[in-house]
C-alpha cells in the first residue's frame, strides 16, 4: 500500500517544484529584473521592482519603465545599460504621459515581445521608427494644412529667405550668440501651436531699418508679399512634427476626401477613415502583403495597388513616388482618436472639435486637392477608372465658358444624385464659402464664363420633335430617355434644374472639345447637322424629362 503514499508524495512534490519554478521565473528570471539589476543611480544600485507610470486621466498604466527605467518619474539619473537611457527631451514628459499614448504597444505587459505588441494577434503594436509621428494623431489635429505643392513652396521659402540664420526649427538653424544669451531669433518649431505675433514682418522691417550693424542689418532683407503668405503657411503648420504635417499635405493632394470621410468631412464611397490608424493587424488580410505583417506594410501595399490587397476595392492606384507612399502611410496611421479629458485636450484638437476649424487649409487649391482631385484628376481634366463611369473634365474651356459660377456652385453643393458626385454641402460636410473657393479655383484652372444676357429658361421648342431627334442623334451615347450610357445621363434632376437653357443649347451647338461630344451644328461622317431650332427642340425634350422626374 506504499505505492499510493509515494504517488501522493511525489506528485505533490512535483506540483510544488513546478510552482516554485514558475515563481522563480517570475521573481528572478524576468528580463526587467535582470536589467534593473544592472542599473546604477548616483546612490548606487536601484531597487528592483515593477515600475509603472500611471495617469488615470489618459487611461495609462505603463510598465515600460520597468526596463526603460530612466524614462520613469524621478529616475533620470539611472544608467548601466543602453535600454535604461532617458527619453530625448520632449514636450510630453513620458514620466507624466506614459509611453503607450504616443507609441502604442501594450503598456501593461512586462516582457519585451508582449509590451512592444509584436505578438501574434496583438491589436495595437508599437509604431515603428519611420511612423512614430503617427502617434501624435491620437490627441492632436494639425490645422490649416495646405496641399503638398503649397506646403513644399512654404518650406522652400523659409529656407530660401534664410530664416534659419536666426531661427531654429526642429533642431536646424539658429545662431547661438557667443558668450550665452541664447539664439538671435526665437525657436519656431512649435509656432503653429503656441501662436506667434501676426505683425512680425512689420517689426522685422522696423528693427532692420533701425539697426546699424549686426544680424538685423546683415541677415534680414525685404520679403515679397507672396513669400510672406508662404511663410504664414509655414509658421501656422509648425507643430514640432513636420514629417507628419508634410504627410498630411500629401493626403490633401490626391482627393482622398472625395470618397472617404475624416472627422465628418468627405465622401461616402469609401470607408470612413477617422480611425483608420487604429486598424487591428489581426483584422486585415496579409495574404497579398509582402514583408512583415505590420500595418505599415499593409498600407504601403494597399496604396500601391488597393484592389490586390482588399478584394473588390474600387480605390484607384495613384501614380506616386515611394516617398509619397510612405507619407500617405504615415498620415493614415496617425488617424487615431482618443476621448480626452479637457485637461489633456490639446488646443488644436479643441479648435477643430469645438470651434469647427478645418484641418485642411481652406484655399481653393487645397480644397480641390483634398476633395476633387481623386475623381476629376489633378488638373480637373477628368479621369477614367476601371469599372466606373468616366469622371468628367471640369476644367474643359468649352464647358467652363458656358457654365456660370452659380451652375458650378450648385453642382458642387447638391451633387449629381445617382452618380458618384455627392452633394458636398450636406453629405460631404463642406461650407458655402469653401464651395465658392473651389469654384473660383476651378475657374483659375479652366477659364471664365461668357457673359449671357438671356434668362435661364427661354427655349420653346417642340418636345415631341425633340424626342425623335434625341433618339436618333443623342441616345447612342446618352442612352434611351437620356438615362446615360457611354456619355453622362442627362435626365438628372439637379443637372436639369441648375443648367440654363443657354448652357444646354450651346453645349449641343458647339460641342465640347477634348470629349466625344462634337458640335452638332456641323455634320459628321455618320450624321447630318442639326439646325438651331432642332437643338432647341432637343433641349425642350430634356426639359420635359425634368418635369416628369421632379
Amino acid at each position, binding site marked *: 500500500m*506504499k505505492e*499510493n503514499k509515494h*504517488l501522493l508524495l511525489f506528485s*505533490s512534490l512535483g*506540483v510544488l517544484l513546478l510552482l516554485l519554478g514558475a515563481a522563480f521565473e517570475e521573481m528572478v528570471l524576468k528580463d526587467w529584473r535582470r536589467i534593473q539589476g544592472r542599473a546604477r543611480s548616483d546612490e548606487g544600485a536601484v531597487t528592483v521592482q515593477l515600475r509603472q507610470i500611471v495617469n488615470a486621466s489618459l487611461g495609462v498604466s505603463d510598465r515600460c519603465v520597468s526596463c526603460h527605467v530612466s524614462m520613469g518619474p524621478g529616475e533620470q539619473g539611472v544608467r548601466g545599460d543602453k535600454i535604461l537611457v532617458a527619453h530625448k527631451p520632449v514636450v510630453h514628459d513620458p514620466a507624466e504621459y506614459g509611453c503607450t499614448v504616443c507609441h502604442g504597444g501594450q503598456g501593461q505587459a512586462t516582457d519585451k515581445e508582449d509590451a512592444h505588441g509584436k505578438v501574434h494577434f496583438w491589436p495595437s503594436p508599437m509604431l515603428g521608427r519611420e511612423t512614430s509621428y503617427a502617434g501624435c494623431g491620437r490627441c492632436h489635429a494639425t490645422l490649416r494644412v495646405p496641399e503638398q505643392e503649397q506646403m513644399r513652396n512654404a518650406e522652400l521659402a523659409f529656407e530660401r529667405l534664410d530664416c534659419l540664420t536666426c531661427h531654429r526649427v526642429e533642431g536646424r538653424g539658429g545662431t547661438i550668440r557667443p558668450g550665452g544669451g541664447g539664439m538671435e531669433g526665437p525657436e519656431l518649431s512649435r509656432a503653429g501651436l503656441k501662436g506667434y505675433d501676426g505683425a512680425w514682418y512689420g517689426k522685422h522691417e522696423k528693427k532692420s531699418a533701425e539697426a546699424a550693424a549686426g544680424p538685423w542689418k546683415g541677415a534680414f532683407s525685404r520679403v515679397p508679399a507672396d513669400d510672406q503668405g508662404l511663410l504664414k503657411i509655414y509658421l501656422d503648420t509648425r507643430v514640432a512634427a513636420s514629417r507628419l504635417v508634410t504627410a498630411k499635405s500629401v493626403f490633401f493632394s490626391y482627393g482622398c476626401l472625395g470618397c472617404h470621410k475624416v472627422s465628418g468631412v468627405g465622401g461616402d464611397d469609401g470607408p470612413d477613415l477617422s480611425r483608420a490608424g487604429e486598424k487591428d493587424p489581426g*483584422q486585415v488580410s496579409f495574404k497579398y502583403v509582402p514583408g512583415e505583417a505590420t500595418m505599415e506594410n499593409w498600407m504601403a501595399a494597399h496604396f500601391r495597388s488597393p484592389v490586390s490587397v482588399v478584394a473588390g476595392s474600387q480605390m484607384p492606384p495613384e501614380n506616386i513616388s515611394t516617398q509619397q507612399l510612405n507619407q500617405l502611410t504615415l498620415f493614415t496611421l496617425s488617424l487615431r482618436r482618443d476621448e480626452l479629458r479637457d485637461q489633456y485636450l490639446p488646443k488644436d484638437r479643441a479648435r477643430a472639435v469645438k470651434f469647427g476649424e478645418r484641418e485642411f487649409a481652406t484655399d481653393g487649391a487645397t480644397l480641390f486637392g483634398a476633395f476633387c482631385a481623386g475623381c476629376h484628376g489633378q488638373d480637373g481634366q477628368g479621369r477614367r477608372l476601371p469599372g466606373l463611369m468616366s469622371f468628367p473634365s471640369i476644367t474643359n474651356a468649352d464647358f467652363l465658358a458656358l457654365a456660370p459660377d452659380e451652375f458650378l456652385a450648385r453642382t458642387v453643393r447638391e451633387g449629381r444624385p445617382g452618380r458618384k458626385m455627392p452633394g458636398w454641402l450636406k453629405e460631404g460636410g463642406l461650407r458655402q464659402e469653401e464651395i465658392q473657393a473651389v469654384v473660383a479655383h476651378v475657374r483659375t484652372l479652366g477659364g471664365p464664363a461668357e457673359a449671357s444676357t438671356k434668362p435661364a429658361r427661354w427655349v420653346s421648342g417642340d418636345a415631341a420633335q425633340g424626342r425623335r431627334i434625341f433618339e436618333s442623334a443623342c441616345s447612342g451615347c446618352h442612352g434611351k430617355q437620356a438615362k446615360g450610357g457611354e456619355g453622362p445621363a442627362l435626365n438628372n434632376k439637379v443637372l436639369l434644374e441648375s443648367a440654363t437653357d443657354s448652357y444646354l443649347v450651346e453645349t449641343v451647338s458647339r460641342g465640347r472639345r477634348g470629349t466625344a461630344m462634337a458640335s452638332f451644328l456641323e455634320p459628321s461622317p455618320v450624321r447630318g447637322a442639326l439646325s438651331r431650332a432642332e437643338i432647341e427642340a432637343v433641349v425642350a425634350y430634356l426639359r420635359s424629362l425634368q418635369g416628369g422626374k421632379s
Partner: protein
Amino acid sequence: MNPASTQNNALREFVDNLKSAPRRMYETAFRGGAPTTDRSRSTFVFGNVFLHLHAVRTHRWSLKWTTTVGLGIMSLSAFLITLVTGVLLMFYYKPSPEAAYASIKDIHFVVPTGRLIRNLHRWAANLMVVAVILHMARAFYTGAYRPPREYNWLIGIGLLVTTLGLSFTGYLLPWDQLAYWAITIGANIAQSPREVTDALGITEYFDPGGLQRLLLLGSDTVGAEALIRFYLLHVMILPLALAALMGVHFWRIRKDGGMVRPADADERLSKMKQGETYPVFTEAPNKTYQLAAVVRGKTAVVGRGPENTVPSMPHLFYAELGVMMLTLLACVALSMVSDAPLKELANPSVPENPAKAPWYFLGLQEMVSFSAFMGGIGIPAIVLAGLALIPYLDREKEGTGEWFGGPGGWRLVKLSMLIGFGAPLAIESFAIRFGWLREWFPKIPQLIVTAINPATILTAVYALYSIWCIRRYGSARSGALGLFTCFLCGFLLLTIIGTYFRGPNWVFYWSPSEWPKH
C-alpha cells in the same frame, strides 16, 4: 456563598474557558481525535461531510492501480481544477461581445498569474474530456456496468454528455475567431435535422433542426445572445447539473458496493504479495466497527469477513489524493509549456477556412461532411442509445471485474481494434479517392445520400461485426466488446482525420503545409 466569591468563580470559569477555547475548538472540529485506531479512522470517515461518501473500509482490490487506473478521480480532479480556475477567471471575464475578447487579453497579459490560471483551466478541461472517455472505457472493459451498477452507467453517460457540453460552451467565451467559427460549426451541427426535413420539403412546417439551433444561439447567428447563453450554461447550469450527477454517481458507487471486482478477488489477492498496511484492529476492541450498510444485492462486506479490506483512512485517501495531485501536476506542467490559444477578435465577415469544431467534435464534423443529419444527430443518437443499452443487453456474469473479461477477452478486443481502425480507414480512403454518390450522380435525392454514406456504412459494418461476435462466441458481452472497441477506434480515427488531415473546404490534405495559400 457571598456574591463576591460567586462573581470570582464565574470570572475564573470564564478565564479557564477562554484558555481552553483553542483546544476545544480543535476537538469539536476533529471529534474522533487523531485517526490512529480503526475505530477513530472509521469515525474520521463517516463523521466528515466531505468524506462520508466513502465506505469506511476499502477492499484491497479497489486499491490496485490496475483496477481503475485512477481515471474517475482524475476526471473529478480535472473538474475541481476547472472549477477553481473558472471561478477565478470569472472575476475578470465580461460576457459581452464588446468586452469579452479584451477581458481575455487582460487575463492573459495583465492579471497576475492570469495566464497560468487560464492555461490551467483550458488544459484541465481538455484532460477532463479525455479522462471521462477513458474512464468510460475502463468501466466498460472491466464490466463495471453489470448489475447492480447499471443505473450508475447511465448516470455516467449523462456525465459524459454534460462534460462535452461544458467544454463546448466554454469554447465560445474568448470571442476570438477560433471560438466564433467553432461555435458556428457546432450550431450548424445542431441544425442538421434540416437535411432530412429539407429533403422531405417539410422544413417550413416542422423544423426541429432550426429550433435546436435557435435555442442554442438565441438568434440566427452567433452573437451577443449566443454569448450570454453559452456563458450561463458554462458557469451555472451545466456545472450544477454536473455536480448533481456526480453526487449521484459517487453515492451509487457506495450503494452498489464499491469498485467492481471479480467474484474470486479475495482468493486472487491472497496469492499476491501483500503490501504493508496500517494495523487492522490494533486496539483489539470488543466489538467490530464494520458498518452494516443497507445496500441492495451482494456487497463487499455484508456477510463476509473484513479480511481483505483496509481502512479507507488513510489508504484510500492516499490513493485519491495521489491521483489528484498527479492530475494537477500534469495540468500545471502542460500550462507552463503551452498557452491556451487566443486568435484575433471574432469577425463574422471573415470566415475561418477550414472552420473546425472543438477537437472532440471533429469526428462528428467528419461524418457531418458526408451527411449533416447522420453525422450530427443520427449516428450520435445511435451511439448514445447503444451505450445506454449495454448494461441491459449484457446480463452475463463471466469476466466481471476483469480487464477485457468475457468470452473472447483480449484476443477479441485485438481483432476488434483491427476492424475498428481498418473499416473507417478503408471507407475514408475510398471516399477521399473516388468521391461519393453526390459526385457520381449530382442529381441524386439527398435522402439516399443521407441513408447511404461513409458514416452510415461504417456504422453498419460495426453493427454487423458485433452481431458476428455474438454468434461466434454465443455471448452478448462479446458483441458489446466488439462494438465498443470499434466505437472507440472509429472515434479516435475520425477525430485524427478531422484534426490533422482536413484543410480548407474540408478537403483532404496530408499536412497543413499543403493547404492552398489563398
